[in-house]
């Protein structure tokens, strides 16, 4: 029996000139039910006054990232591209991310044909599984991929050299930055068509503040695409108990169930942004490491 994770990305479609968000919050129980009592501090809010946002001290360090998380993923760096290693689920899930983004892009009323010359920002790129694949697509102009761990970025850069389509072109750029340290492009047109935040918010201490900052990088009419794991019994059993404790296919300490975010929480967060993010639809998918991702 292989672990099974479920994801339910959601899509918020706003008016044309507004930024759009395709949020992937996980889902295996009804969205309304889950978040409250055990982990109230994980509630996402649209108002910056709630206690879960950065305390002044943390904000001054201008980073959303947690040092323990960085060192954990740095230790995983060497196995990042091993197709049978602990990152296998991420590899298998990756094609679905492109299907999802394609569905988002083609849903735009403004898009007449297949979009070309897209600019991507991949936040928390890790070893570059998504960033590399995005850079290979003919419709991509550039991919900027950032990660706070220099060790992991070294792996990402060295892996990109194995492909002349990446290593010799300037399409893919890795930066050792956090979203807070990355300079915000001056003009809105300098921002990104697609900002991706995959399997990241569950590792962030203050997700609302983090998402506030990420959102500023999205070009008007562009897309913020997120995916994460829901805080449900299913996800506890699969990602924590089975994957980490029993089978050990994912290294122990990779996931903290209390930091998982539910669909409803993300929905409320974006609802609270004064109509900047619009209507939603959702995709549910489950991950079966033995067979690949299935929608």
């Amino acid at each position, binding site marked *: 029996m292989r672990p099974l994770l479920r994801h339910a990305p959601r899509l918020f479609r706003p008016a044309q000139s507004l930024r759009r968000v395709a949020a992937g919050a996980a889902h295996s129980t009804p969205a309304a039910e889950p978040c409250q009592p055990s982990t109230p501090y994980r509630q996402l809010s649209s108002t910056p006054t709630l206690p879960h946002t950065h305390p002044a001290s943390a904000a001054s360090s201008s980073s959303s990232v947690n040092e323990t998380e960085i060192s954990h993923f740095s230790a995983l760096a060497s196995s990042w591209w091993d*197709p049978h290693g602990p990152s296998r689920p991420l590899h298998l899930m990756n*094609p679905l991310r492109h299907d999802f983004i394609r569905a988002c892009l083609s849903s735009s009323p403004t898009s007449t044909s297949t979009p070309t010359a897209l600019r991507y920002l991949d936040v928390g790129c890790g070893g570059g599984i998504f960033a590399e694949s995005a850079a290979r697509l003919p419709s991509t102009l550039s991919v900027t991929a950032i990660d706070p761990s220099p060790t992991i970025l070294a792996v990402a850069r060295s892996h990109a050299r194995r492909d*002349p389509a990446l290593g010799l072109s300037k399409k893919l750029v890795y930066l050792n930055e956090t979203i807070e340290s990355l300079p915000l492009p001056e003009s809105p047109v300098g921002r990104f068509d697609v900002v991706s935040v995959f399997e990241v918010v569950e590792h962030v201490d203050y997700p609302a503040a983090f998402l506030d900052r990420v959102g500023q990088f999205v070009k008007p009419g562009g897309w913020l695409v997120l995916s994460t794991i829901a805080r449900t019994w299913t996800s506890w059993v699969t990602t924590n108990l089975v994957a980490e404790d029993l089978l050990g296919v994912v290294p122990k300490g990779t996931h903290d169930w209390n930091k998982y975010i539910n669909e409803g929480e993300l929905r409320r967060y974006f609802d609270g942004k004064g109509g900047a993010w619009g209507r939603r639809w959702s995709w549910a998918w489950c991950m079966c490491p033995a067979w690949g991702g299935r929608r």
Partner: protein
Amino acid sequence: MDAVLRARGAYVCRSCTQRFQRHLRRSYASAAVQPDIYDVVCVGGGPAGLSLLAALRANPVTAHLRIALVEAQDLAKVKSWKLPPDRFSNRCSSLTPSSVLFLDQIGAWRHLARERVQAYQEMQVWDGVTGARIEFDWAPGSTSAAGTTIAYMNENLNLTSGLLKRLEELGGVSVFDSAKVERISYGEETEDLDLREWPVVHLAGGKQLSARLLVGADGANSPVRSFAGIEARGWDYNRHGVVATLELEGEGWGGEHTKIAYQRFLPTGPVAMLPLPGNYSTLVWSTTPSNASLLKSLSAKDFIAMVNAAFRLSPTDLEYMHTQESGQAGEYSWRLEHTPFDYHAVPQTVVAVQEGTVASFPLRLRHADTYIGERVALVGDAAHTIHPLAGQGLNQGQGDVQSLAKTIEYAVSHGQDIGTTMSLEPYVSERYAANHVLLGVCDKLHKLYSAGSGPLVPLRSVGLSAVNAFGPLKSFLMNQAAGNGIKVF
């Protein structure tokens, strides 16, 4: 024919390649030749390799890939292959309707000389020891999705020639033919690039091709498979397949529009006669190596007598005739008078054998441990060789190619590196088990019918007779042979 046709904006973009080459020239000024970078390098220009390249070039998603073909033969000769209408090559294969559909989808089918392709609608299969028989004819009024055609007999050269014409029409493939692969090595690391996992094909004359994905379509003794360190396991049947182009007394008992394939299981192996256009048929006779060399040594008259005997006389008579060095023609006519049989249940009498078409090849079963490695994929005979008794060898290769082309399309459209095992996994998972079942079934059939006596003999006859009497099962088997049933094979 060193037609190097460049693709428009390739997966490995041209400027990248040029930069890389400039860079290499800088760092290794002494090195004479630097590898050209390709997305797909296919070694082997047989039906499997050519179909794969045609499929990739015909699909808009994969048409931008930089593709190279390496082949030992002179492909110009193959492409311009032509025989008079009354002459047929002795190497023919049965193409199932699903293979033909695939060839049509990639735009190759219309480039074949169609008047040389013969569809057949019925099969007659019987046990040479007991006479138990199964007649695969469609029930009156039966409607099959693919019509009543079980399969198409076609000369292999007609297929490769048609595929080459299609590839020429599509363009965009760098063709290196009459080329010898001297060795395959791995690439090097430079300042900008790390190609230590990329296979490099070294051709005689110094040309080097660096491959994102190296496809081994290079036959049963695949050098690509050896390079990848993939074992092929199996056994030799200690049998040879004797082939020949035969001329019959007529168009067949069913006339021009209902052609019939015949196969008789003899203790030495099955003998099959498959219809070609007009009065012609092609022979595939699996037999012992010593029988095969005898058959090849006979005069045309005696050879014809042996073929006619193989479908009519008892195994004991046949065994005796194989001990004669010559004179089989006289022996046959004498013995035939004393052998009762139904004229319409066996092929029409063979009256001639085309000169120079009697040949033989050893039969074996091989299955590679896997079809993929890092930046390597195997298709066709490089991945598996099968007993020819079900006529499935070439069709298995077409199935591989269809699956691999689909896998590559998916990888390209999702930004994956098409050479990684991660990207290639769907190909193996789709094809390996299916091929293994078919290899096993044909192997068991061969072994089952190799017994001349013993407890299996009456049992297998009961089996054949029962299948023959039971309509639905028969239809199922026919649909399997035609490749339009559930995909068990």
